[in-house]
């Protein structure tokens, strides 16, 4: 017993270990912080779900249990033309951007992943410069005007297809494919398109999957580009995220319908909930593929 004490003292001297709070302090802090953060995330979300299912209650307040349970707000949202148009626009934008962006960016990454790719440095630089520097709002807006794409959902679609970051991601993943596999496929008579679609994409499925999921969520949620190119007079062209922004900003009460006034916050809550459903459908897959190394640190020459 004495000996072990001496050994411990020696160790403390050698490593200059100062006295520090015991592990139990750390564990208590850990549990408290994590429980509080989980509650902070879940509680507001449950609150808005409860509100969307409530019936025009302002007082007493809705907490996490709906008061006067009803789906009427959802029914109202789903019967609104502007909402349905916006939802359709967002579906169109998300589908086109996800497919086009991931196809084009991975295609560009494929030749760049070859060590003897012609003009490799030049092409890579051309891509990376746009990641580092952008011209700003006005020149981009003028370009959209010149292309006659303002107030058109396609302006948002076209500008969102570019994603240089995913080129880098795909490139670093293609580097890991053994060249023997490609040569074998070539000997079997595959042309370059078949090779890419049938051999390369399935081999890099995890990175394709995660990039696809991120495209879906990113396109669905963002409204910055739409805010630039689609003005408030063209509601038939706006994506859902822009519709939500304008809904939350809209404070005028120019309606005579009593139900609409008392249920305003319930309808807004229901709109938000419906708009988040596609994201929730994709979310489990995102978490699943998080561990496939989606970090900028892994993107290297």
């Amino acid at each position, binding site marked *: 017993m004495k000996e072990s004490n001496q050994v411990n003292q020696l160790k403390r001297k050698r490593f200059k270990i100062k006295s520090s709070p015991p592990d139990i302090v750390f564990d208590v802090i850990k549990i408290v912080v994590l429980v509080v953060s989980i509650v902070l995330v879940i509680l507001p979300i449950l*609150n808005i779900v409860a509100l969307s299912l409530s019936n025009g209650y302002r007082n007493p307040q809705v907490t996490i249990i709906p008061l006067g349970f009803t789906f009427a707000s959802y029914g109202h949202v789903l019967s609104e033309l502007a909402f349905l148009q916006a939802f359709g626009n967002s579906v169109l934008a998300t589908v086109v951007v996800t497919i086009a962006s991931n196809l084009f960016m991975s295609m560009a990454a494929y030749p760049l992943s070859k060590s003897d790719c012609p003009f490799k440095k030049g092409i890579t630089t051309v891509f990376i410069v746009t990641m580092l520097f952008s011209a*700003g709002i006005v020149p981009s807006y003028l370009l959209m005007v010149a292309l006659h794409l303002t107030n058109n959902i396609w302006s948002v679609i076209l500008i969102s297809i570019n994603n240089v970051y995913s080129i880098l991601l795909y490139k670093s993943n293609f580097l890991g494919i053994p060249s023997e596999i490609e040569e074998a496929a070539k000997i079997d008579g595959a042309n370059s398109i078949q090779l890419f679609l049938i051999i390369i994409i399935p081999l890099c499925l995890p990175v394709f999957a995660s990039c696809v999921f991120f495209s879906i969520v990113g396109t669905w949620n963002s409204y910055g580009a739409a805010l630039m190119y689609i003005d408030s007079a063209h509601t038939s062209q706006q994506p859902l995220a822009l519709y939500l922004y304008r809904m939350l900003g809209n404070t005028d009460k120019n309606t005579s319908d009593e139900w609409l006034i008392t249920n305003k916050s319930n309808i807004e809550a229901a709109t938000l909930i419906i708009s988040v459903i596609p994201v929730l459908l994709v979310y489990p897959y995102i978490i699943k593929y998080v561990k496939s190394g989606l970090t900028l640190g892994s993107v290297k020459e």
Partner: protein
Amino acid sequence: MEKMTDSTNEEVAAVSEDAVSAKKKNVKIDPVTGQVVRGFWQEELHRLKKHRSIIWFVLPALSLVILFGYVPMVGMLIAFRSKFNVYMGGGIAGAWASGTWSLENFALIATDPRIGLALKNTLLINFFGLLITFPLPIICALLLADIKSAAMSKFVLIVLCLPNFLSWTMTVGIWANVMSPTDGMLNNFLCDIGILKEPFDFFGSNPWFKPLVIFLKVWKGTGWSSIIFYAAIASIDKSFFEAATLDGASKFQKILWITLPTIVPVIGLQLIMTVTYIMSVGLEQLMAMYTAETKHEQFTVDTYLYEISIQDKTNAPLATVLGIVNGLIALFLMLGGNAISKKLLRTSLW
């Protein structure tokens, strides 16, 4: 063994083939390696021929990047034309023709009366935002990494990452609802326990606006940002921790002397990326948080640019010039930060 001879045979065959074709075309051959010596353009052309079946794969992405990345950069030249007004009609050609070469637009930055407020708000939010939003994900990752049960850590991860995938409108909608002065859960609670005498309008309050911006950034981003640190911690060799445990190190000491020093490169890279966006608070968040009462607090570089170029279309020259300066600042911060990280941490963004 067999494999080796196979590959050397192949190499020899390839080299001699090269040599044969070289003889036909009178190309120089390096006497030591036996490979063909080519100039830069010859080499690139040779590679182009070799990869002609796949090199066109870059064309769709390249043309999009040129159209939406480089054409606007040419359009930036309009900032050097005097008295242009792009909204007068006639599009860019009309705006171009209306002036002469001049630098007067850049003087607008110095004389504009509102730009000071925009800069002040932007830098204040981003400076205090950085102080709070940067360390929190690291702390969160340290706590996450200490959870023993795999199922538990997965559950915590799924919950804490969720807000990152909600849009800014959703995030602001959720919290505006919770904090609402008329029927909000938070005000109700604070009044019940006696902290507040009457409901308080958090989103409509000027002194609370900046803290609220930072709070929403924390709520939305902390869980997801911690993933990258969490992954870095998970990749540390477990034997370090075991040895430290044997030496009697506590959890705090292990974090201080093993975990943090090991993930310093990751922390450095993340810091560079965050500092790069110092001039931007995020247009989507600020626009979603807009209220008439707090418009002076919400007034930042992002919203000012948006207002004068798109929303009210009042000052396109200033917006163009500001956009260029903004882009250059971000570029220099990124390049400078990357150079520092290359030197100090031996890691680079690309």
